[in-house]
């Protein structure tokens, strides 16, 4: 009894404890829990790892890119060279041979492509001469971004298709390579034209603007001539054209456009979706800055190309 009687008060105290826990008590318990969680987390992060001493290498920084007349003109030269290289590659791959049901009146487009290729080589020289005249250096390589992110992707899709991946079936090579080749040439001519037009707003000298537009005017006419060879009677856009791949037209808009030029082609994927790429005029991520390196491109030793 005594024992019982001595235990009773402590039992009562235990029983009455919860009733005595106020808001402060809850806060204390919460705080203790948080501290315990932090300690546990710290313990886990340290398990099995050794601390490091000293400083690691800093975050690498790109040089500041200066966008001046020289950089703009060298970039334009790179675009023209990329286009000329693309045509050469397409000819080497035999993409302009055969016939296409999409453009039954096309005939042999090689005379057009050869003329276009010469034009773009000369256009690159023109831009480089202007760049050198502006106190910069010439750029005789293509444009890395245009090559790798656009032209290579389209040509690969046309000639090889896309291999199967873990979550996607293989896409075969193009179901109509000549159609796609003609459409790519039309897009690249339009890109050259719109890039030249866009340059007018960017360079500071009127003579540079006029020279750029001479290139653009010729490219625009190239695009128009190709459109009319592939699509006779295609002078103007047809409203409500429901064709899966719209045919090119000679005068696509009332004013010259600096908007994107979209390529649509290649074989469809497992859902029937063809490759769609919007070729845009040069922007900051495609500029040939003063620090841009040639990479794998060797400078062309052409006597007509100005060098410094």
């Amino acid at each position: 009894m005594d024992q019982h009687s001595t235990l009773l008060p402590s039992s009562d105290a235990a029983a009455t404890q919860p009733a005595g826990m106020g808001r402060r008590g809850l806060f204390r318990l919460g705080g203790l829990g948080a501290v315990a969680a932090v300690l546990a987390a710290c313990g886990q992060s340290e398990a099995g790892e050794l601390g490091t001493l000293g400083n690691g290498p800093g975050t690498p920084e790109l040089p500041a890119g200066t966008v001046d007349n020289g950089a703009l003109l060298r970039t334009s030269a790179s675009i023209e060279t990329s286009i000329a290289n693309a045509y050469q590659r397409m000819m080497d791959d035999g993409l302009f041979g055969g016939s296409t049901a999409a453009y039954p009146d096309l005939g042999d487009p090689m005379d057009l492509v050869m003329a276009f290729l010469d034009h773009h080589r000369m256009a690159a020289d023109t831009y480089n001469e202007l760049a050198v005249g502006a106190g910069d250096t010439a750029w005789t390589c293509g444009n890395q971004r245009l090559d790798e992110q656009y032209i290579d992707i389209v040509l690969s899709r046309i000639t090889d298709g896309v291999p199967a991946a873990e979550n996607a079936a293989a896409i075969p090579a193009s179901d109509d390579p000549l159609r796609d080749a003609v459409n790519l040439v039309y897009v690249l001519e339009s890109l050259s034209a719109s890039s030249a037009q866009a340059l007018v707003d960017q360079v500071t000298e009127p003579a540079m603007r006029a020279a750029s537009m001479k290139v653009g005017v010729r490219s625009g006419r190239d695009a128009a001539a190709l459109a009319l060879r592939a699509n006779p009677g295609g002078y103007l856009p047809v409203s409500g054209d429901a064709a899966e791949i719209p045919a090119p037209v000679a005068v696509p808009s009332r004013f010259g456009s600096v908007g994107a030029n979209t390529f649509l082609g290649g074989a469809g994927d497992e859902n029937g979706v063809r490759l769609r790429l919007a070729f845009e005029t040069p922007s900051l991520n495609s500029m040939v800055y003063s620090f841009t390196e040639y990479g794998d491109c060797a400078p062309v030793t052409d006597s007509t190309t100005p060098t410094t």
Partner: protein
Amino acid sequence: MEIEVTQAGPAAASPRIGRRHVLGAGVGGAALSLLPFLAGRAQASAGDTTTTAPPLPPTDADVALLGQAQQIELTFVDLFETAIAAADWSDDEAAVMVEFREAHKEYAAALSALLGRHAPNTPSESLMGSLVAGFSGAKDGILSAAYDAESGAVAAHDEILGQLQGTNGAVLIASIQMAEARHCTALAALSGATDLAQLLVDDEADALQVNG
């Protein structure tokens, strides 16, 4: 009017802060917070470009050049109007000729919008007089005359572009020139030309001259 609150006790010992002080402190804080941004802008503008930005609006000399361009475009509206009425066009041909007339009308309107009260808003009588005969004959002759005239307009815009200082006018002229360049190829094809040199206009016509 300044609104101030006075308090008794310990709070009254602190200096009174009025609305002006609060606003002043806010403006000061905003200025301090903008300093890094403004400093960055100044640094960027010093390091990102080495060329002087050209003026945007047309200069006085530009206004005269753009006025000539507008007179060319208004003359073309009348010339295509004459051509459309002069021959018996097929539906496809008529669609092209009407579209080109409307295009020139829009070019003139765009130049008018840029020039405002300085816009001539009249065609060139001298240009009309020299070109109208070609736009009045047989269909083949009209297409040939239109091809030459559009090429002359491209050359004229090239000359103008080489003199314009303001970028607003230069951008507009470039967009007009690009479209008119394509008009040449379309007109050549419409007349049945297959010669590449003609389609691509290897020989640009002499620039059109506006003399009143």
